[in-house]
C-alpha cells in the first residue's frame, strides 16, 4: 500500500480514493478526487490554479525550503522489514509532522502580519531616496547653526553655605 500524491493538487491520495489515469506512453497520473481529474482533462496548469500546492509554493504563500522536507521521500527500493525500525519511524513521523506544521503555520502568520514589514520597506526606500538630506553625526556636532550651544553654569561655594541655616 502506498500513499501517493495527487498530480494536480499535491494532496495525499488514500486507498479507495480517486482515479488513476494511464496515458499512451505508460505515464501514470493520480488524482485525489474528480475535481482534480476534471481540471486535468480541461488541460489546466496546476501552477496557475490558486488552490493547488504547486501554485502556493511557487508564489511564496507556503514554506518552500525546510530541513523537515528531507525526511519524507519516495523510496523506490524496498526496505527489509525490521520491527524496531518500523516503530522508530512511526514515532519520528509524528514528531516531524508536528514540527513541520508548526513551522508552516509560523511562516503563514509572518506573511499575514500587516503593517510592520510594509513600514520597514517604505522606510528603507525613503532612506535610499533622501540620503542626501541626512548629515553625518560628526558634521552635525561641528556645525554650530544646527545644534544649541552648550552653556556652562558654575555652582559657586558661597551659595551652598547660605542654604545650611535654612535646612535646619
Amino acid at each position, binding site marked *: 500500500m502506498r500513499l501517493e*500524491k*495527487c*498530480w*494536480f*493538487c*499535491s*494532496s*495525499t491520495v488514500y486507498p479507495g480514493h480517486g482515479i488513476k489515469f494511464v*496515458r*499512451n*506512453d505508460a*505515464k*501514470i*497520473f*493520480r488524482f485525489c478526487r474528480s475535481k482534480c481529474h476534471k481540471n486535468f482533462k480541461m*488541460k489546466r*496548469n*496546476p*501552477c496557475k490554479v490558486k488552490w*493547488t*500546492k*504547486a501554485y*502556493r*509554493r511557487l508564489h511564496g504563500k507556503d514554506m518552500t525550503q525546510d530541513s*523537515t*522536507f*528531507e*525526511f*519524507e*521521500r*519516495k*523510496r*523506490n*527500493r524496498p526496505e527489509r522489514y525490521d520491527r524496531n525500525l518500523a516503530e522508530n519511524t512511526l514515532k519520528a513521523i509524528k514528531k516531524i509532522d508536528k514540527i*513541520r506544521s508548526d513551522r508552516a503555520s509560523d511562516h503563514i502568520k509572518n506573511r499575514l502580519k500587516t503593517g510592520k514589514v510594509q513600514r520597514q520597506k517604505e522606510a528603507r526606500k525613503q532612506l535610499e531616496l533622501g540620503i542626501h538630506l541626512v548629515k553625518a553625526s560628526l558634521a552635525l556636532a561641528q556645525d554650530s547653526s544646527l545644534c544649541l550651544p552648550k552653556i556652562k553654569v558654575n555652582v559657586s561655594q558661597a551659595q551652598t553655605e547660605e542654604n545650611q541655616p535654612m535646612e535646619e
Partner: protein
Amino acid sequence: MGGKCPSRKVKKRRFSHKTARRDKFLLKGDDLVYDELQKSDTEKKPLPRDEDLPGMGQYYCLHCDRYFANATVRDEHFKTKRHKKRLKQMSGPAPHTQLDAELAAGMGMPDNGPALMSM
C-alpha cells in the same frame, strides 16, 4: 462522453464517435512534446513513412503534434495563431510533472537506493 451526434441518419445509441475518442487519446501530451523539443538535433530520427497519415507522415509539426499533406500546408500552419501560441508555451517553463507535485507536497527527492551496477 460527448453529446448527441448531429447526423439524423446515425441511429446507434452511442452518442460520441469512437474515432474521435481514439484520436483524442492518441494525441501527445504537453510534457512529451516539451521533452522532444529539448532533445538536441543529432538525436532526432527521420519520420517513418506511414500510409494512413496525411502526406505519408513526412510533414510534421512537432509543437502541435500534427501531420500535414505537404510542405506548403505545413508552412501555412506555422503562420497560424494557434501554432504561435504553442511556440510561446513550449519556450516557457517545463510543464508540471508528478515529481513537481510531490515536491510541492513537501517531500524530498525520491530515494532510489545505492546504485546496483556501475555502468
